[in-house]
């Protein structure tokens, strides 16, 4: 708990006691104020303290062993990289980022190098923290992968997760609208994990199959 106490102090210094909920962000009730922390802090303040603040918040929410590696490029832009210790840590970690004023920027599901050999897949969640980018990576099994939906926390995660579900063999638990987003229902599930011909994938095969569909459509119109 010592980190939590330190974090409280750090957050108070950051926003000078302005309506911040308790330190263990992941376990607290989300703030009723629709404006994020970023909206309320004078420009530049979050960026100054972002490294310490994020590290403490994640350690508090997702476990002491959570480590964030930061890289600063030649222009001073920060990117933080964190591998979460377990899939269960995702939800509390995402809540902690939301309470720091983070905005979900992108979700990248992928099969890493030697995925079959290791039996692992990864999903990277990228968050924007006032210009800095934090990437939280969860490692999941190749078979029966499940992640909790972040859409209840970040509204814009909706499409990101729908796309994830149709392209990869991952179940997103608790998604409010798990319909296919881009792909036609005639296409196989999780085409990014199968050998699907590109023309089938894009529904653009100039073959007998396509012309059969066109002719069937004409008959229906008539």
């Amino acid at each position, binding site marked *: 708990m010592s980190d939590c106490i330190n974090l409280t102090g750090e957050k108070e210094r950051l926003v000078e006691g302005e309506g911040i909920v308790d330190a263990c962000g992941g376990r607290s009730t989300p703030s009723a104020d629709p404006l994020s922390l970023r909206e309320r802090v004078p420009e530049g303040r979050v960026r100054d303290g972002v490294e310490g603040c994020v590290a403490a918040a994640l350690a508090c929410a997702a476990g002491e062993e959570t480590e964030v590696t930061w890289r600063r490029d030649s*222009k001073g832009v920060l990117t933080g990289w964190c591998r979460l210790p377990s899939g269960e840590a995702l939800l509390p970690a995402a809540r902690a980022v939301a309470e720091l004023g983070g905005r979900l920027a992108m979700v990248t599901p992928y099969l890493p190098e030697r995925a079959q050999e290791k039996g692992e897949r990864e999903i990277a969640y990228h968050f924007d923290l006032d210009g800095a980018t934090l990437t939280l990576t969860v490692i999941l099994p190749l078979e029966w992968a499940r992640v909790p939906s972040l859409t209840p926390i970040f509204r814009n995660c909706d499409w990101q997760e729908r796309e994830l579900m149709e392209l990869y063999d991952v179940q997103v638990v608790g998604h409010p609208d798990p319909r296919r987003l881009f792909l036609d229902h005639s296409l196989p599930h999780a085409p990014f994990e199968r050998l699907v011909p590109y023309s089938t994938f894009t529904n653009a095969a100039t073959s007998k199959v396509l012309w059969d569909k066109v002719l069937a459509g004409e008959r229906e119109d008539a």
Partner: protein
Amino acid sequence: MTTKIIELGPHQLALEEPMYFRVQLEGDRVADLDVLPGQVHRGMEHLVMRRNLYQNITLLERLCSLCSNSHPSTFCAAVEDVAGIAIPERAEYLRAVADEIKRIASHLFCCAVQANAIGEVPLFRRIMEIREIMQRAKEAIYGNRMDLAANVIGGVRYDLTPEAASYLAQAMEQMKKPLDQLYLQFGNNPVLMARMAWVGVLPREAAVECAVVGPVARACGIDYDVRKKSPYGAYDRLDFKVALQTTGDVRARNLVRLAEARQSVSLIEQCLAQLPAGPLCADTLPEIPAGEAIAKSEAPRGELMYYLRTDGSDFPVRLKWRVPSYMNWDALKLMLKGEPVANIPLIVNSIDPCIACTDR
């Protein structure tokens, strides 16, 4: 009041690309909206993993016509980050020039399409004529009107000769007065005010919740521009203010775009004035090692983000990108709620939607 569901396609929405909407109406007002994307899904993320990093520059340039410079330049920035390549200073400025030329043309196209959507055909023609100055400049300098083919890993593959720089400076001079006039016209003209002011309002809190980016966010007073928040290329040495409005309506979005187009003219002039001598591209490229990187840029529609993961070969393990339009579609649900059916095409076009980018 009667409840009715109608389906609108690209023709009814005055879009040049296919996107379908299922709209629930209460009387003649919009009650709810379902966006149905995927009509031009081309599996681009599947294709990029089957092409090497150099081929992907060409492929990504063909992802979308209006942001066709933002995609390859941001992708190249991600590769350069993984490999630790520092691009020459002259290349940083030349990338900014290409980006800003595309931004002016893109913003003007969006304003023109909206003028057309409300039946202001003479205004549509006038804006397209002004935009033609930029199209001609692109054609003269890059040899193409849309895809500039300006980027390579490690720098750029075009140069501005003194003649080309002076031609571009002259074109910028020609843009100033018309852009100032357009800003005043979109801000004060009673006909445009009647159609655009307080139409399609997105309150600031809703904009934060939907995580919208670009001119749509800045029209609601959200002070976020990647060029300022996460500076890249030459932008840390260029002087500009983030264009902001507060009302969050169609008029505000257009005023942000026109203010930005005017600023882009100034940014190009600054680039031409500061343009340092030197090489255009890194001499020799190192082997691209295994690694991962994030690259972001401010595309005409807002924050564009790339994630690249490599394994030491020339083929990406994963290349993922998220375009600015991706979140802006969702905000339409809030903008359209309570609006009459007749306003749907205008409001949809006011987010400057990019379907080729969204579907990929």
